[in-house]
């Protein structure tokens, strides 16, 4: 029984740890579905985590902290959108420079706020639901950030695949000419969803500093933005698959910690490197032609489910600027 409780505790902490990543993946999925790449995630999240923490600390109001973080995320997304739509520049270059800028800026602006205790999100169990065995402690005895993340997954999926504006959004990312011919203002749509996605990424940053990895220190969330970008691809630009990817990533990290305790003779570094190797492997499986060959080599009846499971394809016009004139 004791061991079972232990396992449950680990699993519920995985759910908590993964929720900011889930939010970031949702945000970037929305942006990329509209055909725009916001590569600045790593820098955005750092700056948003720093801003969210300081605002939360100064005002002692968590909501304001998250709001400020969302604004930071939207601001960076706006730069990417403006640079690529209006100035027709490489989204990748702009995003990369913003990554560096966000990193430097957060280190500079946040230097007087490192390693201090600030406000944090309280645990908030949902009555009745949290008493459901297993599922209760995993999903309903968490805090509001976790609930928000999971609600956003559902909401994003529903919006993208079940609503009229969602269809428009995807149309803009797949065939902007066709969408334009049907009267959709392609670039306006891209601006809007860049902002929405950027806002979510900002909230994800603050979710670290105010909830999952409390406080602020230089390079607080460094690397996680890149992980989120890889998970978006792994998730095949679907929020649900992306959320599963984020949970799996959290799971492997937790597993690495457990394994490390079990095998202390293996260097901790080997375990630190695992997520990164894993991400390359994941990209390899989801995008390479080898997988297609493997699928074709399998029995016929297995191919369709396997393909659905293993293969992903990017929005056709991802990263391609669209000139309305």
């Amino acid at each position: 029984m004791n061991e079972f409780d232990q396992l449950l505790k680990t699993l519920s902490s995985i759910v908590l740890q993964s929720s900011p990543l889930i939010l970031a993946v949702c945000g970037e999925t929305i942006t990329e579905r509209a055909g725009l790449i916001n590569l600045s995630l790593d820098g955005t999240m750092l700056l948003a985590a720093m801003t969210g923490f300081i605002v939360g600390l100064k005002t002692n109001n968590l909501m304001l902290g998250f709001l400020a973080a969302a604004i930071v995320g939207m601001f960076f997304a706006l730069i990417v959108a403006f640079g690529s739509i209006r100035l027709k520049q490489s989204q990748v270059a702009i995003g990369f420079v913003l990554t560096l800028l966000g990193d430097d800026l957060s280190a500079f602006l946040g230097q007087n706020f490192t390693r201090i205790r600030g406000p944090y999100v309280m645990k908030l169990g949902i009555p009745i639901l949290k008493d459901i065995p297993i599922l209760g402690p995993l999903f309903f005895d968490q805090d509001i950030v976790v609930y928000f993340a999971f609600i956003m997954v559902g909401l994003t999926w529903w919006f993208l695949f079940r609503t009229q504006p969602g269809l428009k959004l995807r149309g803009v990312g797949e065939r902007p000419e066709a969408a334009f011919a049907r009267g959709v203002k392609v670039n306006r749509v891209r601006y809007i969803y860049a902002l929405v996605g950027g806002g979510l990424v900002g909230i994800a940053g603050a979710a670290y500093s105010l909830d999952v990895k409390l406080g602020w220190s230089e390079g607080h969330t460094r690397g996680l933005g890149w992980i989120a970008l890889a998970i978006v691809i792994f998730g095949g630009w679907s929020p649900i698959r992306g959320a599963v990817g984020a949970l799996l990533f959290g799971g492997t990290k937790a597993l690495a910690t457990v394994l490390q305790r079990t095998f202390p003779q293996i260097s901790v570094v080997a375990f630190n490197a695992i997520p990164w190797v894993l991400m390359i492997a994941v990209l390899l499986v989801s995008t390479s032609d080898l997988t297609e060959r493997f699928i074709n080599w399998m029995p016929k009846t297995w191919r369709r489910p396997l393909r659905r499971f293993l293969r992903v394809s990017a929005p056709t016009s991802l990263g391609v600027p669209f000139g309305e004139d």
Partner: protein
Amino acid sequence: MAVKTNKVNPLLSRTMAALTPVLATLAALGVFALILMALGANPIEAYGALVEGAVGSPNAIADTLVKATPLLLIGLGICIAFRGGVTNIGGEGQLVVGAIAATLLGLKFPETPGYVIIPLALLLGFLAGAVWGGIPGILKAYFNVNEILSTIMMNQIAVQGMNFLLRGPMIDPVQLQAASRIPQTARLARAFDLPRLVPTRLHLGVLLAVIAAVLVFIFLWRTTIGYRIRAVGLNADAAKYAGINVKRYMVLSLLLSGAFGGLAGAVQVYGVTHRMFTDGSAAGFTGSAGFNGIVAALFGQLHPIGTIPAAILFGALLVGANKLQRVVQVPSALVTALNGLVVVFVVSSEIWRRHQAKQNQNVEIEESSTPEKEVTGIV
């Protein structure tokens, strides 16, 4: 300011192209002056310190050039990759791997004469970097794995590998005995130090980097292979129809790009640090040269020769900023912010300039202009 006389006077447009980053740097310094004033520091005094720190004495100049060397080498690799239509953000990892390989060789054969070890170490660093850049290249060309993400991941893997080696197998025996266990290797034999050019910290690597820049220029613009790399970068489809094996050249660009990163690492160890050390992150050893080199290359219009002054400028900023910080007593992180400010101004001015150039329909596509086809898709 718009480049209206483009067709009439291509020289003017090229001058503009070269001047824009300089003007942007000045603008960034202007904004930084305002920040300094807001913090209660005297900007004139601060910039005096910056200039003095960067070029005020032979030693300062030498330090600037030494600091510029890894930026230039990384930047050369970036020129090759971006010209070849692939994005290499793995400079940090490639530098680290090259440094590790070179250090291992030096530690393994402490008695061998320097004239044998030094060239071998540089070669080994070059090769190690090539492997580290080649892996994302192969993944990109044959398995369709996005190289931006894979080079970032490779950075992390290299850093973890470095942390492992420097805390374990490669740790300085003295550190083991003293039980302080600072993660660094033993100092390489003094015979392996890159020869000093004049009695300053200026080492042979600086000269090597400049020679490398000329070689890369010749390679890209005067050889068939270089021509094909650029052809693939300009238009992969057209290159394919022309019978160029696009995939192979993609791998080659990333491989060569990584090789220069590895060389930068080897030069850094043999010329400057003479040992490897880590603070757990990549920047502890590389000083973010892997990222700053990208900026230097962009600053230098992705041209190997243009990257030389760009790297020197950034080297000067880095060296001078230290002095600035000591003299006017501003937080050290402000120095990083200055760097970031320059980058943002330069990149945005470049964007503005090209936008202006595009508005003017008469732009002729010059040989040396930045590739028109930008790196786009994420997959």
